[in-house]
Structures are given as structure tokens and as C-alpha cells.
């Protein structure tokens, strides 16, 4: 029996989405086959890694992570510049965590100022993230969208509870949006439908399936992603064709494996390597499931994952 390469041809294709402006703009998505199978399809864009910065010094981050940014994280502008220049980041993700009511509860106006300041300092694309408090995010992201007008940012995250305001302003200000639902393929589809029914074009959306850390639910994210990508490619479902983004830093860097010192758990080895390995493995697993963009934190994990992406794509 002669071997014939088992190629599959799919009826669907992932939308290509561009973020940022100018020469450093990046495109994600556009593939017409399963992850990295270039023998049977086109992979026009490599997955992109965005480096996360926060709008206040990250006192709650584990030691390993704080150490990596200790000289720059006191100010989001300097921090963003460090990611772009010293680390060669393809994109920066600014998380407006200070606006959370349980944190500093800063105002939308203050957030908008931070956004403007950061945009003035960098020319790589910017992802703008709220604090994940649905109600507050609607106002914060509205202000951020306006402040960022003209820079084609990726705004996140629009969820069922707050998407109307966010989508309306993103539409007016010409941005792309991240649509996130709770680890559910059908809810993800419904949210995309609702967003497009507002007049927001379906190829301006990026889907966040809701990520989880390795060992803490990653298999749920993994399978939701494979099912979303399957619906896109095999069922040619346009509502499931946005590229996929995974915001993993926020989940990875609060689990025990990235925090507990070796003295507490000698069987687990040294915490710095362990933590970096944990973020790296989370990213690699999700790349295998179809991730088109990752938001990550540790420079070493980012560097390794970017090297692996270059090998894969």
C-alpha cells in the first residue's frame, strides 16, 4: 500500500485581523488549516506574543516575575518602552488593573491618560485590557477607545454583560475587539452573533475562549479552542472564524506552581525555573490548540515561546 500524504481541505478559513498602525502593525489569523500544518494549507501569519504591562506597579505578582521587571515596572510608560525596545516585543498589552473597584478604583479618565501616555511612547501595536470587572470595564474601555482613536488597538474584553458599550465605542474609534465567553463554544458563538448584529464586522473580532493555567483547567480551554477552530474550518461557520487569543499571564502567575518556594515543596524544584516552565508549557499547549495570539508576562517564557513559534510556523 503506497503512502499518500493525508491532506485535508477545509471549506472554512480563519479571518485575518490586523492590529496597530504603521510599519510595526501585526496581522494574526488567516490560516486555512489546523495549527501549523503547512503541508496542506496556508499559514500567512505566525502567532504573535504580546508582553503584558500594568498601569500600577505589580505588587501582587510573584517574586520571580517582579524580579524580571524590577527596574521598569514602577511606571507603565517606561515599562511599555522596555518591552518594545529591550525585549523586542511584537506588541504590548496594557492591563488597566488599577481601575478595578477592589484595587485603586481609578477613573476612566485616569485610565485614558495612561493609555495616551503609553501610545505616545511606543509604536508597536497596543492591546488595551480592562480590569475584568464587567461593569467598570464598560466605562474604562469606552474612555480608552476614545483616547486611542486612530491607533487600531485591540480592546478587551467584551463580554455578554458589557459588550454593547465597548463594541459601540470600538466601532466609532476604529479598533478591534476581544470577545470573551466562559469556556463555552455555544456562548462564544452567540456573543459573536450579538456583536455582529450591532454592525461590528465579523472580521474585526478576536475570540478569547477564556484561558486557564496548566494544571488548572487548561484542557477545557484547549478543547473549546479545538472545537471553535473545527467549526470554522470544517463547518465554514463565519461566526466561529475570528482568530483566537489567550491571555495566559493572569492565570498562570497566581497558581501555587509559580509562587511556592522550593523550601516549601522540595519535590517541585526551584521556583524561578518552575514558574517560567509553567507559563511556557501553558503557551505551548494552547498554540497546539490554535492560539493566534498570546498575552504573556515573563521575558524568558516569551523568548522561548517566540523561538518555538518561529520553528513551527
Amino acid at each position: 500500500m503506497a503512502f499518500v500524504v493525508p491532506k485535508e481541505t477545509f471549506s472554512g478559513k480563519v479571518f485575518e485581523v490586523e492590529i496597530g498602525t504603521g510599519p510595526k502593525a501585526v496581522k494574526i489569523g488567516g490560516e486555512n488549516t489546523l495549527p501549523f500544518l503547512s503541508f496542506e494549507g496556508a499559514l500567512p501569519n505566525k502567532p504573535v506574543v504580546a508582553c503584558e504591562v500594568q498601569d500600577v506597579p505589580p505588587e501582587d505578582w510573584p517574586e520571580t516575575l517582579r524580579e524580571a521587571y524590577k527596574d521598569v515596572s514602577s511606571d507603565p510608560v517606561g515599562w511599555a518602552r522596555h518591552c518594545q525596545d529591550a525585549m523586542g516585543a511584537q506588541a504590548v498589552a496594557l492591563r488597566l488593573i488599577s481601575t478595578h473597584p477592589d484595587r485603586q478604583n481609578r477613573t476612566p479618565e485616569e485610565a485614558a491618560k495612561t493609555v495616551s501616555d503609553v501610545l505616545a511612547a511606543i509604536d508597536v501595536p497596543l492591546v488595551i485590557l480592562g480590569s475584568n470587572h464587567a461593569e467598570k470595564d464598560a466605562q474604562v474601555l469606552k474612555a480608552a477607545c476614545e483616547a486611542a482613536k486612530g491607533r487600531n488597538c485591540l480592546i478587551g474584553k467584551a463580554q455578554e454583560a458589557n459588550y454593547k458599550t465597548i463594541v459601540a465605542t470600538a466601532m466609532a474609534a476604529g479598533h478591534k475587539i476581544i470577545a470573551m465567553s466562559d469556556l463555552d463554544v455555544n456562548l462564544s458563538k452567540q456573543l459573536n452573533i450579538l456583536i455582529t448584529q450591532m454592525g461590528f464586522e465579523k472580521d474585526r473580532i478576536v475570540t478569547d475562549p477564556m484561558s486557564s493555567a496548566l494544571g488548572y483547567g487548561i484542557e477545557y480551554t484547549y478543547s473549546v479552542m479545538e472545537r471553535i477552530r473545527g467549526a470554522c474550518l470544517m463547518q465554514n461557520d463565519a461566526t466561529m472564524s475570528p482568530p483566537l487569543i489567550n491571555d495566559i499571564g493572569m492565570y498562570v502567575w497566581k497558581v501555587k506552581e509559580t509562587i511556592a518556594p522550593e523550601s516549601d515543596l522540595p519535590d517541585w524544584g526551584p521556583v524561578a525555573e518552575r514558574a517560567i516552565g509553567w507559563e511556557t508549557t501553558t503557551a505551548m499547549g494552547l498554540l497546539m490548540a490554535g492560539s493566534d495570539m498570546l498575552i504573556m508576562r515573563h521575558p524568558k517564557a516569551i523568548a522561548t515561546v517566540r523561538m518555538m513559534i518561529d520553528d513551527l510556523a
Partner: protein
Amino acid sequence: MALSGVEIFKHLPKTNCKKCGFPTCLAFAMKLAAKQASLDLCPDASEEAKAFLGAASEPPIRAITIGAGEKALKVGEETVLFRHEKKFINPCGFALLIKDTDADIEARAKSVAASEIERVGQKLRVELVAVQNESGDPGKFADAVKKVTENAPNAGIILISTDTAALESALGGLAGKKPLIYAATAENADKMVAIAKAAGASLVVKADGLDALSGLTEKIAAAGFKDMVLDPGARKSKDMVEQYTQIRRAAVKKSLKPLGYPVISFAVDKDPYVELSLAAVGIAKYASIIVVSDISRWKTLAMMALRQNVYTDPQVPMQVGQNVYKVGDAKAESPLMITTNFSLTYFIVLGEVENSKVPAWLAVMETEGLSVLTSWAAGKFTAAKIAQYIQESGVEKNVSHKELIIPGYVAVLSGALEEKLPGWKITVGPREANALPAFLKNKSAAA
């Protein structure tokens, strides 16, 4: 995977004699495809037809066992490409690569023996050792294998050598241990198969490209040896994804028998993070044995977690044991909380409690692995059941107070629970776990 009527029809006499009871051979073939008839009905079916149909009912990927006894590793038998279609059946095995020229063979073998950890009620370990005949010296090779078997008695062995003398020397000490021999190629297949057969070992088959590989395995299978493992030669991530996907598709979707064997992947790199990443690719993308050059504990922790996650049965939630867990330096006056035993719930709640730095008691109740809301809706997390558990668990001994914090999503139970737990105060906690640190800090500040 089912054969189609047309494929079966090609192997039938095509005389339309009707002896089978069906009007045409095509009609009979369709019944065979639907497993609604047996080939016995055709008096004129050839031996070839019988062999063809017999082969079609075996699992698409052959089962291979390495090692003997309780801790033997079984791989293969996979049937799908996506874990959400059907669970992946046999978790891949990890192998540490040891060269017979290494200075610290004993220590490295010992690290394999000591690699076991427990996670969510499962014991996870590095199952195999691959010993490489780097020296070219049969004596040194046998000696290395001996050191490995003495210091890692439960590890399955992979012998990396193509030298007859070296292999026979090493195999001498492995009687009945079902090792895996690496590897047969087009040039030495006859010799290697003979050695493997004599030793009761499985054999890795290696070739350049899947066409050559399937030709070679076909040849070996025709000679009567089928305990094969495939090395398609991928050493970089891109080749791994492409080749392992092609093999799995060919075996599972196209019923291509020559590629219906487990795959061995060499995830070896000087950079430990790259090695970890290569292992991750193999775990997700269909490799059955993953060989690494270093098993530092921080690394295997991640590898084992990913393997556990990918191979979990998507239909069966992972559960933790029912127990009252002490978080931090919890004392008698520390708060007592209750939640369900869905492993994800447990980990998330536990994580947040730890993050709060407030020592606490976390009572985890058996709810068949369902989360808070789901188990409540299913009648497994009710006031009566919670009360019964609290009373029977003896948790009263741990605490000097009688206050129980229940998850915010089941606030509705607080009244009924207070009735069923006389003397206890029921406090409603937050709905989302990430609000626990603020909740617990406020509580301890108020106390």
C-alpha cells in the same frame, strides 16, 4: 475505522451468485460494511478477502507494552485526532536518555526512580529509561543497563544500539522485561527483527519520510513481526506536528495499517525550556513515548501536568478526595469554608485562599466531581447533605467556633442549613473565588 462497501466489494468474487442471500456482491459488501452480515456467508470468499476483513477489525494503532509487572507502560490503541471526540486512551510515557558514557549513570537512574509525584489523586512518574550505546563497547553498554535496572527497577528500558554484540550483551540482563529496541532501518531490519523476536522485545522502526517508513513496517509485518514503534525522524517542532499528525490521520482515518503503530519522539535540546516545549508538542500531538535528556523536577512537574490534562476523559470531571484541608497555619479560630470536590473548583478556591494569606480550613465535600452550581442543581450539594457531611466529618474538633462559610452561589441554602446544623452560624461567602482574598482579609480584620 469502518471500511466502505466499495472497498470491501473489491475483495469479493463479483459473480453475483446470490449464495450469500443478497442479490449482488455490491449489496453483500454494503451489508458487510454495516456489520450486518458476516463474510462466512460467501462460500467463494478468498483467503485474501478474509485476511483483509480480519485486519480491519483491529484497533487502528497497535498496543505496545514496555516493561513488565504492575508498572509496565502500555501505549497505542488510539482512535481519534481530537480529545473532545473521544478521550485519548493510553497516556504517553516519558523516558530519560542516559548515555553509557555518562559519569553519573547511577544518580540519573535513581532520579527516575524518585520521579513520582501525586497530582489530583493520580500518581505520575517518568516511566522509562533510554540507554544509548554511545561508547560502542558491548561491555560498557551492558554495564550501564545493569546500573539502570538496579537503580530504577520499575522503569521500562529502551536500548539504543544497532550493534548485535552490544544488544545481546545488554539483553542478557533483561529477560522477561519487554524492552524496546532502537532501531531497525532498511539496512538492518532483518537482523534487528531477529534480535527483537528472540528477546521478546518491541522494536522501533526508523526511516526517512513516511513513504519509506510505511514500506519498511509493511515488510517487517509481512515477515510476522508486529510489535513496532515508529520514529519518523522529527526532531524539530514543525516536523513533529506535521509528521505525527499525518501518521495519526493515516492510521485512524485512512486505516493505513503500516502506520498504525505508536510514535516515539525525541524532545532533546540543550536549552531546558526548549526541551520542555518540544515535549509539550509531543504530548499534545500524538506521541506515545517522549524521550528527554534531563528530568529536573521543575520540568517534569510541567510535563506530567500537561500529560494529565490532555489525557483526561472530557466526560468525567477530575475529582479530589473528600477531606477537611488545612490551608496555611490554620488554627482553631481560623475560618471554616466548604466547597465541592470538582478538582478545578478545589484548585481555584484553594489558590485564592492561599493568596489571601489568611490561614483557613477548607472542607471539600464529595459531589461526584461536580462544581458548586452544577452539584446544587443535581441535588448533590443540598442543605441536608452539607449538614450531614459537617456532622460526620468531625470538623468540629478542628475549630473553636461554629461558623461555616458557604459559597456565594448557594446563598439560598443558608436558612435551611442553619436549621439542619443547630448551633452553627452560616455565613455566605463570595460568589466568585477571586473575591475570596478580600473577603477573608476583611473577616480576619473584623475578628
